[in-house]
């Protein structure tokens, strides 16, 4: 695989000095930002004596896989099979993210591109809701959940995720940029609203929903189900991992691996999604 490090030269408005300056700034700040990433990765391979080294080192001297072995032993000994936790997490993350992207995009589409009474009021309400501290809405939220009888169900996490304000606002920002002529042409061709939404609107804001997927996934992946789920069989994976990691000093190695797993899964999705964004760009002939 050949990676081309040159900056795009197709634009006339670029000076070589500026390019070098940008690259310099990027690399120095990049190194600085990468510290936690490197630290988390090396931490998982550190033997006990290096974990407790003070002051801590960022890099590992004698890498070992013991921490991983310890975690696998703990995983095979859980009271409820680890696959159950994994299945819960998959349900939450896949249904929560997928539903959020589709449902909030549908709403954002009509609010941006249709004319109907109440649309301004509604989108204003979404923006305002972003600014209310979530710390105090926890109690009313719990009351609503228990009125619905949703305590101790996975939908108590999945369904509210569909209605997060972030996705609606993000999608509607991008959808305002779609030219109206595009939609009118499709309408004249007799395409149904859902067809227009699915085959014209969504593809033209692909970078937006690929980004939203990352954001929503990250939030749901970290959810330990603590607010509404009290049954062990319904707990998600991060909860089980956290339990294994919190066993005092002897579990510090396991905790480091857990930290790595918690970080690496969103990164895999992130890299996958970024490559998809690149694909859209190549098909539209930009790069």
């Amino acid at each position, binding site marked *: 695989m050949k990676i081309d490090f040159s900056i795009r030269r197709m634009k006339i*408005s670029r000076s070589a000095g500026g390019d070098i300056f940008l690259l310099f700034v990027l690399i120095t700040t990049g190194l600085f930002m990468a510290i*936690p990433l490197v630290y988390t990765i090396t931490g998982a391979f550190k033997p006990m004596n290096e974990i407790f080294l003070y002051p801590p080192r960022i890099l590992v001297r004698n890498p070992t896989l013991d921490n991983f072995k310890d975690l696998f032993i703990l995983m095979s000994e859980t009271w409820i099979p680890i696959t159950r936790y994994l299945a819960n997490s998959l349900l939450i993350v896949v249904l929560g993210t997928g539903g959020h992207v589709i449902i909030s995009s549908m*709403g954002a589409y009509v609010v941006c591109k249709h004319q109907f009474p109440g649309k301004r009021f509604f989108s204003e309400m979404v923006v305002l809701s972003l600014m209310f501290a979530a710390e105090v809405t926890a109690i009313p939220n719990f009351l609503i959940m228990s009125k619905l009888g949703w305590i101790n169900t996975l939908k108590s996490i999945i369904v509210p995720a569909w209605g997060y304000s972030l996705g609606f606002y993000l999608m509607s920002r*991008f959808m305002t940029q779609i030219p109206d002529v595009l939609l009118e042409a499709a309408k004249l061709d007799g395409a149904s609203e859902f067809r227009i939404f699915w085959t014209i609107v969504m593809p033209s804001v692909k970078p937006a929903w690929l980004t939203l997927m990352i954001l929503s996934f990250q939030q749901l992946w970290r959810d330990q189900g603590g607010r509404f789920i009290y049954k062990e069989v319904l707990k998600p994976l991060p909860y089980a991992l956290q339990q294994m990691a919190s066993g005092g000093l002897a579990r510090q190695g396991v905790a480091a691996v857990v930290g790595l797993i918690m970080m690496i899964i969103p990164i895999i999705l992130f890299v996958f999604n970024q490559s998809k964004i690149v694909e859209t760009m190549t098909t539209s002939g930009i790069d």
Partner: protein
Amino acid sequence: MDTQITVENQGLMYNLRHRFTRLGRDIARNKTSYLFLAPYAIIFITFTVLPVLVSIILSFTHYNMLEKPVWIGWQNYLKLFLSDDVFLIAVKNTFVFAAITGPVGYLACLFFAWMVNEFKPKIRAFFTLLFYAPSISGNAFLVWQIIFDADQYGYLNGLLMSLGLRDDPIAWLYDPRFILPICIIVTLWMSLGTSFLVFIAGLQNIDPSLYEAGAIDGVRNRWQELWYITLPSMKPQLMFGAIMSITSSFAASAQIIPLAGFPSVDYAARTVVSHLLDYGSVRFEMGYACAIATVLFLAMVITQKIVQRLLSKVGE
């Protein structure tokens, strides 16, 4: 007299009925639009709007989460502004914190997104990941605790002492003079989050023919291109980023509490949200916590209106 009232009533009734039929007609005509919006609207109203409204109502009550709330009118708000001196410290800190981390973090997101976008896709993805790393790796900001440790083994103290700049270590996170600035630095370090990603997505949505047209029209360098072409064509994303900056800088507490302690020395890192958490989850005065949340909400709304006005001037 009587007849007049009946006539007025009839007028009102007619008016109402007229309004309802018009509303009904509107709904029928825009059936598809409402159907598209309905799933989101129902969930959003149930799990977001309703809890917010309940919280605002609770702000007018005394509520300890065990007994039924008791209506006390404006008393929480009066107490907040007239007799809670810690709240005033929190407001001052939050103001300083937001005034720096909001704009600087916002500009950093924009600058780095624009810079990363200058590169070819693979390099771009790599740098995006590096910059986004502090936000993706959970509580990685705790690395900073080692840097700012209070003894000579803390990296910063060690550095200062080996350079001979200081003879004794500074207790960075216990010294009221340094706590807030450190929290600001750490927050800036982790500020390349949601807005950063959205700016990158926004940059990739810009029609490339605009740049060619700009070059013909006499755009000389990349800075002119940024101001006259790039920024105006991503105004929606700029507004999105602004809202994100406002909410994250006004409502910061997640990274401040572990760094500065709770409560922090001399309330040096007390923010409005940590004040709210103190009342909500330590003292169980939920009504009062809701009043704090409502005041914070109003402050953010006002800021948002001002920023919206500023952003409309981009590219002029």
